[in-house]
């Protein structure tokens, strides 16, 4: 019997998970401080702490392999995307086609101005197209989380969620085509340029429909017990996310489309607890911390000017597009301004698309990918604040006083 048999060795050998657990505690506490004293959204704290303690900042916590994080991020994002989809009423587009028009205008304007900007910076057309498709997306994570936290409801809130769901779909779909074209550039045969996007889109759509049908069946039998049903749903989301990744489909598209399909098909509304219960909520917090940890400001060194210009022209394109059709679509000037600005946040979806592109094309990761990552970091921190303010100035958050 020696000391070492029952006392821990020195120096302590701790697993990285310990530091992550500690980060979770600190991030949540910082989030509370932000809410109470600065009236800022909590997620700014989560992302900020991740950024500060992670490799991009003070590097206080050891690097965790991206693949280990990826599961948490995928799951949490899956929950948020399904949540977003299931809150969005696609039938509204039929009653008010001007919203569809606004969405298409906003997305194409974003693509055009960003593409044009990058061309002006002598970026090759195909790479510019990839970046321009990625930045079409508004962050569903930030939108859903901020709307949930501020308990907002009204025209701007509803339209923000609908337009976010739509522009994420555009981004994912056109990103597949742009990446396929990139492969084409590198000399892949035509069949291998056309097939990947079709496989991903078709496969994802099929999986989403299967999810939707199963959801309906289960809800029919278990729906009256909200909590039990939430547990089952949570398992289904995890299953679909992992299945989509295994089949090399797009988990983003699968979960978003599944949410939209279930909402479209069912006759009655269902309200679920935020993020389908506290397990979901914890994952969501972890995801924001992970996003912070993955934050990389290397793009500043690459071209600070490009980062700032990209953010600016993208914001202007979205804002002007919404303002242009505000009157026809039935919202006032103040609401349209708020909606245009609230479309600015970028977070997990563009982050994952950027990371996927960088994995396939390492040159992208060390070049324009860095610029994109820096844009994402800035819009991830500023995004929740902008969305919160937009919902507040339009009077869509609850009155504080009686």
């Amino acid at each position, binding site marked *: 019997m020696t000391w070492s048999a029952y006392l821990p060795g020195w120096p302590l050998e701790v697993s990285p998970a310990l530091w992550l657990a500690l980060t979770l505690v600190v991030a949540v506490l910082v989030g509370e401080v932000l809410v109470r004293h600065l009236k800022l959204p909590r997620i700014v704290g989560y992302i900020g702490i991740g950024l500060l303690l992670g490799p991009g900042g003070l590097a206080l916590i050891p690097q965790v392999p991206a693949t280990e994080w990826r599961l948490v991020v995928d799951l949490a994002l899956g929950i948020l995307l399904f949540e977003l989809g299931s809150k969005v*009423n696609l039938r*509204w587009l039929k009653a*008010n086609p001007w919203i569809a028009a606004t969405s298409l205008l906003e997305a194409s304007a974003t693509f055009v101005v960003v593409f044009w900007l990058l061309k002006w910076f002598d970026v090759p057309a195909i790479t510019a197209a990839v970046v321009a498709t990625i930045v079409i997306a508004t962050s569903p994570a930030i939108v859903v989380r901020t709307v949930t936290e501020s308990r907002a409801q009204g*025209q701007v809130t509803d339209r923000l969620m609908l337009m976010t769901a739509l522009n994420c779909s555009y981004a994912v779909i056109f990103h597949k085509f742009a990446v396929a074209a990139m492969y084409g550039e590198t000399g892949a045969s035509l069949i291998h340029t056309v097939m990947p996007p079709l496989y991903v889109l078709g496969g994802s759509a099929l999986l989403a429909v299967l999810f939707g049908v199963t959801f309906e069946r289960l809800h029919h039998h278990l729906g*009256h017990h909200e909590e039990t049903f939430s547990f089952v749903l949570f398992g289904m989301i995890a299953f679909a996310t992992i299945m989509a990744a295994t089949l090399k489909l797009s988990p983003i598209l699968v979960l978003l489309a599944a949410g939209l399909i279930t909402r479209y098909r069912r006759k*009655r*509304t269902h*309200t679920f607890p935020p993020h389908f219960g506290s397990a979901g909520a914890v994952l969501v917090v972890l995801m924001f911390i992970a996003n912070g940890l993955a934050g990389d400001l290397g793009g500043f060194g690459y071209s600070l000017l490009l980062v700032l210009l990209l953010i600016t022209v993208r914001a202007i394109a979205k804002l002007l597009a919404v303002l242009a059709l505000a009157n026809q679509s*039935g919202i006032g000037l103040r609401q349209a301004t708020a909606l245009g600005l609230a479309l600015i946040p970028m977070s997990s979806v563009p982050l994952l698309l950027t990371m996927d592109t960088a994995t396939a094309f390492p040159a992208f990761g060390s070049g324009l990918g860095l610029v994109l990552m820096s844009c994402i970091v800035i819009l991830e921190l500023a995004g929740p604040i902008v969305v919160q303010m937009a919902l507040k100035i339009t009077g869509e958050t609850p*009155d504080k006083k009686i």
Partner: protein
Amino acid sequence: MSLMPFASSRPLSIGVELELQLLSCNDYNLSSSAPDILRRVEKRAHPGEIKPEMTRSMIEINTSVQQEYGGLIKELSALRDVVSDTGRFLNVAIAGGGTHPFQHWSEQKIFDAPRFHHLSELYGYLAKQFTIFGQHVHIGCTGPDEALHLMHMLSRYVPHFIALSASSPFVQGHDTGFASARLNSVFSFPLSGRAPFVLRWDEFERFFGKMAGTRVVESMKDFYWDIRPKPEFGTIEVRVCDTPLTVEIAAAIACYIQAMSRYIMVEQRIEPEEDDYLVYTFNRFQACRFGLEGVFIDPRTHEQRSIREDITDMLARISDHAQELHAVEAMERIRDILIAGNGASWLRHAYAREHNLADVMQLQAELWMGK
């Protein structure tokens, strides 16, 4: 401030005001969309008026002055279609019914207008708890004394109007057991209840002068009586009804009141007595609590019967007057309510089937919006 003179209006002309619920299509909770809806309907031609109400989750539709059922139902349907189309365009559902089944009063927002802010300051949480939805029916009277006469004679039948229109069994997520729980919220206002028993307009003016002198009231608007005179319109206003679940029922109830008024003015010719009010609050409570099954005590004969029986009896007595007023179809609808039940029983059946108040609210909105 003195009372304005009683304007003359064509006798038995009718006007209807309906307060409507604005709902989010996501969860069918109340949604503060009145400014959006009003901004949009402003641009569309429509009869009558569409106006804001106390909180931002309600709007009011008013018909113009009508003479009979045909014109009334046409105008109400047109108003319903305008607000429903606007609602669809903005992803807002619109519904009748006297209460929202699960809204929380503290989440309501006061509509941005000086009068509403003043009331909100005065009444505090009562103002927000006043997120309830009623139907008001105006009946034209030739002169002020005739108006007071009609008001006191109609008071006896207030339980009829409550029981027929009752459609607010659910409040704050629970079945209250009442057919019209909405009126319980009205009763908490200090100046609710019935008008004082005065039969001549000069007496009424004196009463109003004394009240205004105490500075308790400034205008007739400050009285939340079940029936009150409306001098500027030359009408009396019946205010006890819940907003029914469809405009058809709203129009039928308005014409039932109209036909009864004709009966009172033309045929009945008896004077109201102060003792008629002895059973007033009892009868009204029975109507709120039990609807058509409630007990009705006749103030003169002391005879007891159900409100349903009393309405059946009244329908027989006023049928000639209804015919004169071209309101036969309206009386048929009233008879249907006696058989099939009022809005409260429709809502309870829907809840028994759906087990979920949001689903009930969705069905309620689909019923109201039509199509």
